[in-house]
């Protein structure tokens, strides 16, 4: 079998469902692949390792991909794992924030990833505010604790399938403002990136085919797939993950290899306007469909 190394964006969690299921159900083996899955602690690492040739594939985020390519990392998106944003602006259900406009003069927590100021700026703009109307606070490790403890009034960068459930379980229910509904161009939350110069398209195509099959299995058999996922490791089997699993199923890209070029063009333009990337790169430099000739 051909060896393929994949670096996740973070620790294994329900977002990685198709990969875990493909591994467990033997779909990778069916494609003649021996996939090694590595979990890093810093989400900024996987693209660097892929760009440096240390891994065949890395999971990253579409917004970050634009920044990385603009900074000269030899990377291209070759597949999609989660095809909608997961990011949301999270507030307390019982809090005073009923609409984005209520954020005026409030504290917004975030975990540094590079693009949150641009995102919050876009959301505020539609509500008639600017970034200067809120106080941005980096809370790094503790998005939901900071919100639950009342240190901040809202957090950006929380995941709708994860932090929302977590707050419910802790008894401090939250509410999500979905970023794509509030003025942000929609994007792929989790994507597979490969080295632009050295990638083996044929091998990657086989990998994506296996995850596509796994995605279909998950959609068709939500309960059974959860049992398989939870069985891989005891620390995965808890209530939070069970809820997150349910909420994530609809968001897995049903066609991981498929590329929506417009999405990438629009987001590139958005970032350029926000001043985060200089110039505009053609979609072809950012993302490809490995099946296309």
């Amino acid at each position, binding site marked *: 079998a051909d060896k393929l190394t994949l670096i996740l964006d973070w620790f294994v969690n329900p977002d990685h469902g198709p990969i875990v299921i493909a591994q467990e159900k033997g779909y990778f083996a069916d494609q003649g692949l021996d996939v090694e899955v590595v979990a890093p602690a*810093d989400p*900024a690492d996987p*693209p*660097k390792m892929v*760009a*440096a040739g240390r891994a065949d594939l890395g999971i990253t985020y579409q917004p*970050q991909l634009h*920044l*990385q390519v*603009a*900074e*000269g*990392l030899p990377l291209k998106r070759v597949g999609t794992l989660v095809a909608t944003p997961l990011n949301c602006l999270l507030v307390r259900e019982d809090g005073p924030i009923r609409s984005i406009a209520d954020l005026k003069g409030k504290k917004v927590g975030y975990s*540094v*990833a*590079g*693009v949150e100021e641009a995102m919050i700026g876009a959301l505020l703009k539609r509500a008639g505010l600017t970034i200067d109307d809120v106080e*941005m*606070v*980096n*809370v*790094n*490790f*503790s998005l939901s*604790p*900071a919100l639950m*403890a009342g*240190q901040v009034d809202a957090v950006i960068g929380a995941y709708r399938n994860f932090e929302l459930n977590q707050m419910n379980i802790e008894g401090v229910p939250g509410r999500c403002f979905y970023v794509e509904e509030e003025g942000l161009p929609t994007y792929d939350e989790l994507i597979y990136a490969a080295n632009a110069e050295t990638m083996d398209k044929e091998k990657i195509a086989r990998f994506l085919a296996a995850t596509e099959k796994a995605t279909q299995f998950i959609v068709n058999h939500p309960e059974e797939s959860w049992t398989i996922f939870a069985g891989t490791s005891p620390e995965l089997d808890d209530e939070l993950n069970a809820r997150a699993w349910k909420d994530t199923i609809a968001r897995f890209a049903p066609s991981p290899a498929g590329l929506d070029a417009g999405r990438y063009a629009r987001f590139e333009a958005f970032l350029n306007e926000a001043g*985060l990337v200089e110039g505009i790169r053609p979609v072809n430099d950012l993302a490809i469909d490995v099946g296309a000739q």
Partner: protein
Amino acid sequence: MKRLLWAAAATVLVLGLWQALVSLAGLPPFILPGPGRVATALWKNRVLIADNAGVTILEVLLGLVLGTLVGAATAIGLAASASARALMRPILVFSQAIPVFALAPILTLWLGYGIGSKVVMAVLIIFFPVASSFLDGLLTTPQGYLDLARCMGARPGATLWRIRVPAALPSLASGLRLAAVYAPIGAVIGEWVGASRGLGYLMLLANGRAKIDLMFASLIVLAAFTIILHALIDFLATRLQSDAN
């Protein structure tokens, strides 16, 4: 003068090694940019870096002063009582064994995301070397001095303040030398845990934006500051030591 020359030589050596590492190991710039790139980033972002460095420097200096005060006070308290010592020694070691990041949410809950939590983080990190070196010094007062004080009918407080403390200043000085190296690390960890300004924050941001050259530029500024701080403290510590000898 001579020290400056050697320091310059050391700088050149480090830069040379760095360039060699980049060129020979073929490290790509997004893993480790060469000195040239970093210098360019440093110059281009000088205002941004200076702003953030100012914040960090303030945190470090406050942390150093407070940490020294708290550490010295603890040492003096422990020197006064053998039972307190027996009880607190394991707790001191324990306090070092807890990675500060675990305490960060608690600290930020109480102190907020301002300068307070970073200063406390720096204090937590330097407290241990200062307290334990100073305590070592306080516990090894030459017996002759203590005999003398006893014959003279000294009050206990007077023996502590006029004899044991001054005699332990050289030990305090060696604790301070360590503290000078660790205090900036404490402040930067504090910034990683939650801050919107400072060199540590700037590093995180640059890393998130894939601007590795800016990250290393901030890093170099932090390292330079640490070295200067160490040299200053070393100078003070040496005076403290020669004063008590």
